């Protein structure tokens, strides 16, 4: 094993063996899964029964007896106003107040003692809409059949003329790409700063002078960057594995009730069942997230996606980490590092913003440009890779990759020069002018 191998091994092992790494690796996905399932479980589990008093002030009592009692949702009717105190003492948990303008205004009020969940609200709203529709149909002398024939739900399908398929899914796959972009953004940030800290640790503890009497400064710097990149990849890989385990085991653990069964049924539904479920959805059921996800899985070229993720993660990390290493070498303490971190973090944050923008406007010129420019491309390009390229624009991917490689070589060279001089420089206030001088030192 060469010296750089020794350095990589030390950097890797000393971090992977740390308690904080192990805790983060296992806690991260558990926390994430816990949060997601916790939120879903809380949202779904509205098991408290509601007794709803409908105070119908509409002329002629439009709503009287029109609500269907559902499981956990019983309706009672009244035409009398009720004060807050009276409502508080009454056995009703909700009071739906529909004033005499309800039909004209399409609006009403729901009073509560304990806030009802979204699905309860949705169910009530849905029923009111149904009742009002029926009332208005009658008012305008339109039959239900006529209404159904007139009522229109338009579906606009966008089509790229260069492709046979419709591309209305692009928006959704872009979100998946954005997920990858977030991961790259976060990992560059977290592990880039670790590189900087590591360099500063060696500098301030003065071990660096011993080290560079044995190895070249460049080897030391690259060993650290590569070692930490591997730590990042290890963590990412472990997160993927753990999340996969948790997301299959999770629903069974967290949602043992009917909703879980329903969700799982949706996941494995045949097209016919899906249609049925879609109808149910209209009737106030939960949106079919998993089915949506399954269709996305087919849309995205995942081997390419993961390949590109690795490329842009490593490329982007090498660019940023080498710059972070240069800062770590140039300064004496963390507080001094702030002024130099700014110019590095700004392009990274900017890339993140452009990636977010590209969700709205995938074909925009800004997205195209910043997916090619090296400092922003690792984040922005992920969204575009998820959307896929057509033969006319695939060159942009190649140019972006080539530029990233060229730029990474340049950054490493630049950082190497600053690093070499900086690590042995103590107690000096570093300015950009000073850094410029270091670039011109030889040996």
């Amino acid at each position, binding site marked *: 094993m060469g010296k750089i191998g020794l*350095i990589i091994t*030390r950097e890797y092992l000393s971090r992977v063996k740390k308690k904080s790494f192990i805790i983060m690796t296992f806690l991260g996905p558990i926390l994430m899964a816990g949060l997601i399932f916790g939120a879903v479980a809380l949202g779904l589990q509205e098991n408290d029964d509601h007794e709803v008093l409908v105070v119908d002030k509409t002329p002629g009592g439009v709503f009287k007896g029109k609500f269907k009692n559902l499981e956990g949702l019983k309706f009672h009717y009244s035409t009398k106003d009720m004060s807050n105190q009276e409502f508080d003492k009454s056995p009703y948990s909700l009071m739906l107040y529909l004033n005499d303008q309800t039909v004209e205004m399409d609006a009403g009020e729901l009073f509560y003692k304990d806030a009802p969940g979204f699905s309860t609200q949705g169910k009530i709203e849905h029923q009111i809409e149904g009742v009002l529709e029926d009332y208005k149909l009658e008012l305008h002398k339109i039959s239900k059949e006529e209404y159904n024939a007139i009522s229109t739900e338009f579906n606009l399908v966008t089509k790229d003329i260069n492709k046979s398929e419709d591309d209305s899914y692009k928006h959704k796959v872009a979100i998946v790409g954005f997920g990858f972009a977030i991961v790259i953004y976060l990992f560059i940030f977290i592990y880039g700063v670790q590189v900087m800290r590591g360099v500063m640790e060696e500098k301030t503890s003065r071990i660096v002078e011993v080290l560079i*009497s044995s190895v070249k400064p460049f080897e030391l710097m690259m060993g650290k960057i590569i070692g930490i990149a591997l730590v990042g990849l290890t963590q990412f890989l472990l997160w993927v594995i753990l999340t996969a385990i948790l997301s299959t085991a999770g629903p069974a653990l967290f949602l043992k009730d009917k909703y879980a069964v329903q969700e799982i049924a949706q996941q494995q539904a045949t097209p016919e069942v899906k249609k049925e479920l879609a109808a149910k959805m209209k009737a106030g059921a939960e949106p079919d997230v998993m089915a949506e996800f399954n269709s996305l899985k087919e849309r995205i070229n995942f081997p390419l996606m993961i390949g590109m993720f690795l490329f842009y993660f490593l490329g982007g990390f090498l660019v940023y980490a080498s710059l972070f290493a240069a800062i770590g070498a140039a300064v004496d303490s963390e507080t001094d590092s702030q002024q130099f971190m700014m110019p590095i973090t700004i392009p990274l944050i900017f890339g993140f913003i452009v990636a977010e923008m590209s969700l709205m406007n995938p074909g925009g010129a800004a997205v195209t440009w910043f997916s090619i420019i090296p400092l922003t491309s690792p984040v922005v390009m992920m969204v575009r890779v998820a959307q896929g390229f057509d033969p006319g624009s695939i060159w942009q991917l190649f140019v972006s990759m080539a530029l990233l490689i060229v730029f990474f070589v340049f950054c490493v060279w630049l950082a190497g020069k600053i690093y070499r001089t900086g690590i042995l420089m103590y107690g000096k206030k570093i300015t950009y002018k000073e850094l410029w001088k270091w670039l011109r030192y030889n040996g």
Partner: protein
Amino acid sequence: MSTLLEANHIVKQYASHKALDDVTVHFPEGCVFGLLGPNGAGKTTLIRIMTQITAPDSGTLIFQGKPLERDHIYQIGYLPEERGLYKKMKVGEQAMYLARLKGLSQADAKTKLHYWFKKFEITQWWDKKIEELSKGMAQKVQFITTILHEPKFLILDEPFSGFDPINAELIKGEILELKKKGTTIVLSTHNMSSVEEICDNIALINKSKKLLDGKVTDVRKTYSTNTFEIDYRGTTEQLERALGGSFDLQANGPKGDYLSARISIGKDAQLNTLLQQLIPHVDLNGATEIIPTMNDIFIKVVGANNAGVGSGLTE
């Protein structure tokens, strides 16, 4: 004695100042070589050039007759003045890492480390972290990692700082032991008594230039002022009468049962002449030449150099 490393006409210029200006130093094989000079003289720069941490702007370095190259670092050991180890890393792991960076194999490094840890009685520290050790303890570990790969050329920058007298003695013993085995040891230090004690040769650098070098005994001889300490019985008057104004009596006073006088005889005179003059008048007990200490020479040479530069230039 052949030369292990030659640094010839080394020049190193930093942006604002010249760190080394045409410095030539030859390090003979198997000796302890004192690299002396005040702070900021350029010693550390010279050391960094010899350890290939930085490159000189001009000048050549010859190691065992060949131009100094990258592979020679395996034969060079360096203990910097500012010591440091990874605080959070275990002593054993850290020592292994540093040893392997110096080219030792895993097994080799382990055997040697166990030998040295045993010798320095620090085996029980193997699994401790550096931050749990005292400064002196960490220094011991660092010393071991410096000499572990048995370098031919060993550079120790202020090796005794941070050690208590017992451990300083231990390190001194190791240095002399290594010298016996043929290692050339460069000692950069401000501790002049240790220079006199263990150094064979010295070079003195001040303001980026070498002022003098050579064997310690020769240097001290060169700077001796032909002054003697004479112990005698008798009276001061008898002594003064004996000297008769031809020699410079610098001091005179009681020393135990005797009187002791410090007499400078001038550059060309001989001790015999002085003694012949004294014998008829006083009862002589002993005569010793007063050789200037390295400390005296250091202050004198550097002081004169600084004064000269100060008056000659308007810097």
